[in-house]
């Protein structure tokens, strides 16, 4: 806290992260950032949302503060709290407050996991006021002009119960992410896993078939992340079958029939 520059530096992304644009999301996000519009990244797990925001932060030259949201997270975890030291009480900023004060991009990953009474703290930040009230401290922070709020959101099965409040949703511009199209996904997987495009092609085919099973035994098909993992094991010398078994079949489901179906897919493709 003593040196804001130093503090921010640790959140800076120095080297360009590899990100393969899928459509025009880079342009759209840049436009949203230009007016500091809050952005929501929607899409299934492991499709590249985190990688994208890292890339954008690098491109825009802004530090990135990421918070993985979870059920037991409280508003204090985001905003900050009083602590006690030898001298007495000291205030400690939470990650959101740090980003607001110093002008970073704050990325709240999987925001639906947090309880609704936690998420409401972002409301005054995401409308024209762009302020963050620290009630406990009696302070009202006006957001730094570079500050931007980005959240990610995975519309899955449980979203019937866990959902963002309408009033939260409507504050954001949303970018819809899906798994990359075939050729692009091959590019991503072969580059990230360091494997030949022919093998990546096979993995991407397997994934495409597994995604057909969404809602038919699987909540979600194999993600790009899983393919990268499978690819890395193959790169290490593990056979395709075993690599897929370990990184795709077993993690995806415990149901014996569905596992067999996934194995059918793998053997049909290979």
């Amino acid at each position, binding site marked *: 806290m003593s040196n804001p520059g130093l503090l921010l530096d640790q959140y800076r992304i120095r080297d360009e992260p590899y990100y393969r644009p899928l459509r025009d999301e880079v342009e759209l996000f840049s436009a949203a950032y230009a007016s500091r519009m809050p952005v929501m990244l929607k899409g299934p797990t492991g499709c590249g949302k985190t990688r994208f925001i890292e890339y954008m932060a690098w491109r825009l030259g802004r530090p990135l503060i990421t918070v993985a949201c979870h*059920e*037991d997270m*409280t*508003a*204090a*975890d985001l905003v900050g*709290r*009083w602590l*006690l030291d030898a001298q*007495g*009480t000291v205030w400690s900023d939470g990650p959101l407050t740090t980003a607001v004060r110093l002008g970073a991009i704050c990325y709240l990953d999987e925001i639906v996991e947090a309880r609704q009474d936690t998420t409401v703290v972002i409301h005054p930040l995401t409308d024209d006021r762009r302020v963050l009230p620290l009630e*406990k401290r009696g302070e009202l922070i006006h957001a730094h002009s570079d500050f931007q709020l980005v959240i990610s959101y995975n519309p899955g099965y*449980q*979203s*019937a*119960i*866990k959902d963002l409040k309408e009033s939260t949703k409507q504050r954001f511009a949303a970018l819809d992410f899906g798994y990359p199209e075939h050729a692009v996904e091959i590019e991503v997987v072969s580059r990230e896993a360091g494997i030949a495009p022919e093998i990546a092609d096979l993995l991407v*085919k397997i994934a495409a*078939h*597994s995604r*057909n*099973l969404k809602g*038919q*035994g699987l909540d979600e098909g194999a993600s790009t992340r899983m393919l990268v993992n499978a690819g890395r094991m193959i790169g290490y010398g593990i056979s395709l079958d075993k690599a897929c078994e370990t990184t795709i079949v077993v993690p995806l489901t415990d149901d014996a*029939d*569905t596992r*067999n*179906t*996934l194995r*059918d*897919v*793998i*053997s*049909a*493709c*290979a």
Partner: protein
Amino acid sequence: MAIAQISSLENVRSGRRLAALLRGHDDVGSAVQATRATLERRPELVGRLVIWDVAVRDLFEANLGEAVVLNFLRLSEHWPAQHSVHDLLAIGRAVADIGRGAGSRVAHATLTELSKVLPRLAGAGEVTTVLAALCQLADAGPESVGLAVSRLEQLLGHAGAEGFSAWVSAGLRASGGRAARRRAYFGLEDALSARVLALGRTGDDFARLEKRLAATMVALWNRKPRFRKLAIPPTPVPRRTSLAAGLVGLPETFAGFEGERAESIYLAAVAHAGAHLVHSTVRFPVGRLKALQIALVSLIEDARVETLALREMPGLRRLWLPFHTAAPSGQATAAGLMTRLARALIDPDYQDPDAWVAKGRALFAAASDRWVDPAISREIGGLLGNDIGQMRLQFNAKSYVVEPSYRDDNLALWDFGDQPDAPSETIDLAVDSVRIERREDANGHSTDDTAKPDETLRARASAVALPDGLPVATYPEWDYAAGIERMDWTTVLEADAAPSGRALDLPTDGDAMRRITRLTRDASIGRRLRHKAQREGDALDIDATIAHMIARRAGQAGEPRVYQRDAPGPRDLAILLLLDLSQSTADRDRAGRTVLDVERKAAAIMAAAVETANDAIAVHGFNSDGRERVRYLRIKGFDEPMDAVVRARFAGISSSHSTRLGTALRHAGSYLGERRAFRKVLLVLSDGEPSDIDAPDPQYLTEDARRAVQQLRRRGIDIFAFGIGSGRFARLDRIFGERRAFRVPRIEVLPQRVMQLYTELKK
């Protein structure tokens, strides 16, 4: 220690009693003692010998002759360690029974045959199943036991224990108490007998594999046809897979493929069917084509779709090739050459010297840049057909069947049109297929949705089954067409559900219940509780901080418990489960379960689990008979425990009349509205869509229910619905919203799905 002594004392006494009984039958007596001595050395039998003695005594006293007893002794001595000794003792008792009915020769044969088939009966309860079937037969048709027993090994190999048991009871039923018919059936001379046997076996294969096949079809081809089982017609021509609009019919058996091999042929068949669904995009007009040409065009089309499939999924070749066993040595008949060509077209390593086969291969390869075009099948097939004609090879359309056996009958490729002067052979083909379809319908094997009888008629016809209850409330109803809310339009008659004489047994699936209970206990939702003076927390606890600072200034170094933390409070849900009790919930699925049965089971499991989790749950039901009579039954109140009275009410509910959903929702909402809870949830279990005798426009009650749902949501009540059964429930989404309407086509999983939602709600 003491117990061991007592049991060994028992053992000694029992042995003595047996010896006394056998006195005077010295041969048997000493044989029994010898066997007994061997058994005493087998650890798994220690403590069971007393029962074994009883079994031997039973056999002996049944007076079946010494040979039977000796046979049993032999079986005992060679009893495989991996088999339960209970089965051995059960065999002893059953053979005594069978012998009493069917005589000692049969008893003896039974023992001999059973000892042969033991390795086949490794599954839990399989021995018992077979014994029960044999005893049933000995009881009802003693003259036929010998017939069944003499083929026991073959029968079990064919149908398994369950299939065997089904075959026995079907035979007893079909013979109508006439010994001659029984003999024909159990001697396998009756056609019905073979059919039932085949059913028993393949019914199992198909049922075991169906889910996997459907999933594999979706995964490989992204197509969701319905699957159904095709009965084997009593003709010598083997049955093939058959595709028809949105349906994949799979034969109930592929002759010669059992166990593991059954799995691969069904998979191969499904992969092939999927290739057609995706790549066979046009139907060929039959026109004036002859049966041979039809068969050849189909053969090329098979190769074409498989080749396209292999481009994307080369691994399928491993699945298909093993079924292509044609070899050049085969007979040079038209059908023989065709199976060879079929192989040549998808097996690059296959060598065949025949010129016609080579020509087919060359023509197909030359068309490689047009493989996506179905027209090439028609062209190449036509050319090859002419050649066969010139070679003067006979082709018998009646006995022709597509090879290899994983391929479908290819009838779906053809448009038979209205062809009054079409060659008779092709009409035969077409008509045959139609006949087969019809027969299946008559046999009830078709899974086609049968039209539901008119809801209204049923409501009128069914007798008044419920005590009507008291009018307790009136509700408005929304007339979407007129755009007005009709005030006080419906009347609710309310009563406690009438208890039946017997209380419902709570499901005894202990493991599942325990898991559910644990889940519910771990889950957390509800008001948060503030914990003060904590070591860590979100905020300083001011009082504790002041106290701590004072203590510190005074030189006391206490532990700084100065934070406060908000933690999830006690779980706090109020759930109202609303059951549809309309007449249609009495419909049975193919396993004979009614929707009402599963609703009842799901509700009872949930009520018990929710009770353990200390949440409040009420279970109510409704049906209706016009707007003045919306019956509303309280099965369990929020504050009633799941006691005998409530369980008797569960047991007593029944199905009748119609479904005026909106009114029932409003009334249920009024119950929830009174509750104090962090989260109020209304869960509707229904098998259909709103309807009532005085509402001819189906949309009317749908729109009213939708409005009721929206109004209740605004009052903070979460509403979810489960649509039970195979209906499409097009209106369910409209009423409850897409993400809050769940479909449960397989009704037996309803309890699971309901509990799944509950645990999600608790998160």
